[in-house]
């Protein structure tokens, strides 16, 4: 069995009038695990949080702590641009990046996106590289997971968990429900298999 996959249910509470109540409800429906994008410290016993911070017009999230601090570990959410390679290398050295959530632009066809992932994997530790579910899309995600056995997927929606679970089972990777808190990850059992015919 290779490295497990993590399902990190993520909830953006920035536009909620009662962010803390929303976060509690989210934790209750997700086994007390969840990662929250927030403006203020949510003061919760469970879950992890990140706050957004625009740097050079790229959406980035300062992650962890309570509240998350400037200069602290952060998540970087961006597509790949070959011009950025040097900057990425420098940043990877100077700043504690928790993960790079790689997004895909509409102009990147699968062949180009595959090339982008191949480049990043060469310069950036694979274990920190996550693919954004919404922009990368399911067909590409399956193919890339087969190719790069330590990639992780960000933003898997609740209603797509079942096919994801089946696929994780097919590629022989365990699936764990987790967040970035100190609470342990919870194993998600593979789906039952019924004999047909």
């Amino acid at each position, binding site marked *: 069995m290779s490295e497990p996959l993590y399902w990190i249910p993520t909830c953006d509470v920035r536009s909620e009038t009662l962010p803390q109540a929303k976060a509690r409800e989210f934790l209750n429906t997700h086994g007390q695990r969840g990662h929250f994008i927030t403006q203020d410290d949510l003061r919760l016993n469970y879950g992890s949080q990140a706050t957004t911070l625009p740097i050079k017009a790229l959406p980035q999230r300062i992650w962890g702590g309570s509240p998350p601090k400037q200069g602290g570990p952060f998540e970087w959410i961006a597509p790949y641009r070959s011009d950025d390679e040097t900057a990425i290398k420098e940043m990877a050295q100077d700043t504690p990046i928790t993960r790079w959530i790689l997004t895909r632009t509409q102009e990147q*066809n*699968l*062949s180009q996106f*595959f090339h982008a992932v191949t480049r990043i994997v060469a310069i950036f530790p694979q274990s920190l590289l996550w693919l954004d579910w919404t922009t990368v*899309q399911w*067909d*590409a995600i*399956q*193919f890339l997971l*087969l*190719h790069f056995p330590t990639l992780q997927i960000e933003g898997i929606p609740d209603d797509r968990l079942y*096919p994801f679970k089946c*696929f994780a089972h*097919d*590629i*022989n990777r365990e699936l764990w429900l987790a967040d970035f808190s100190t609470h342990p990850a919870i194993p998600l059992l593979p789906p039952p298999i019924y004999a*047909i*015919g």
Partner: protein
Amino acid sequence: MLPLSFYPKSLPRTPAPVKQVTRIAPTVFCKSACSFCDFAIPPTPGQIVPPALSIDTLVAYRNTLQSSDYVKVRGGLELQEPFSYILALIRAVRRLYDGPLQVLSPVELIAIQEKEKRPINELLQRLAAEGATALGPGGGDSLTPLVETNRIRIKEWVAIQNIAGHVKLETTAMLLVHQNMFNENGLTPFIETLSEIQHIDRLEIKPLRSRGTAVAYLDPPHTLMLASIVTQLRKSFPNTHLIINTRTLTEDARYLLTAAGISEFYQTHKEITP
């Protein structure tokens, strides 16, 4: 379980082309009610099947036919018109279109043979003489694990495709693909049967659209399952045209399937029905 060793290791710069296919269905009625079919309507008991498509109406589809890359003429098992109707239909299509033309299938030929008492060989020669270039794969669906339709015996289906090859018609086959079809034998029985045909020119891979049909318990295949099957078929049939409908596919899937060995994609340009 997904056979992991069969997935594309690299990607093409562009996917294979998408061809435009026009289908002419003289009637939408068919009594065989195949469990996987989401096109034909079985007539209710006592229902009088309306006359087939009027050949004169084809002229109205001149532009459609001329902008098609491939045309298929279906028959169905409720066609009341004689074989001469099909020949007239082919002649009419040929006046408007000069590309590849696939006509009928082994299942329909057997029905015509029984009704008109003419040998299959002669029927196929007439189709070719009027301008058909290929015989359809109908009945080949019986080769798919768990979807046997018993419309035709496999040996008959193979024999008729072989006769088609002798009269210089393209031979065609199909494979319905669903998520539950992999057992320890995998594709081996399918490949073995298909190898009994001297040369299979065109093989269509059909992702099962099981929703709303009698086989809804079989899941449609996911893209890597399709890619894996295409890879294996490409290995067994290096010179066969492998095709697939784009209807259920994303653009990403077209890259993956091209890498796996698909020769071309198609989409339905127009369905001409009465």
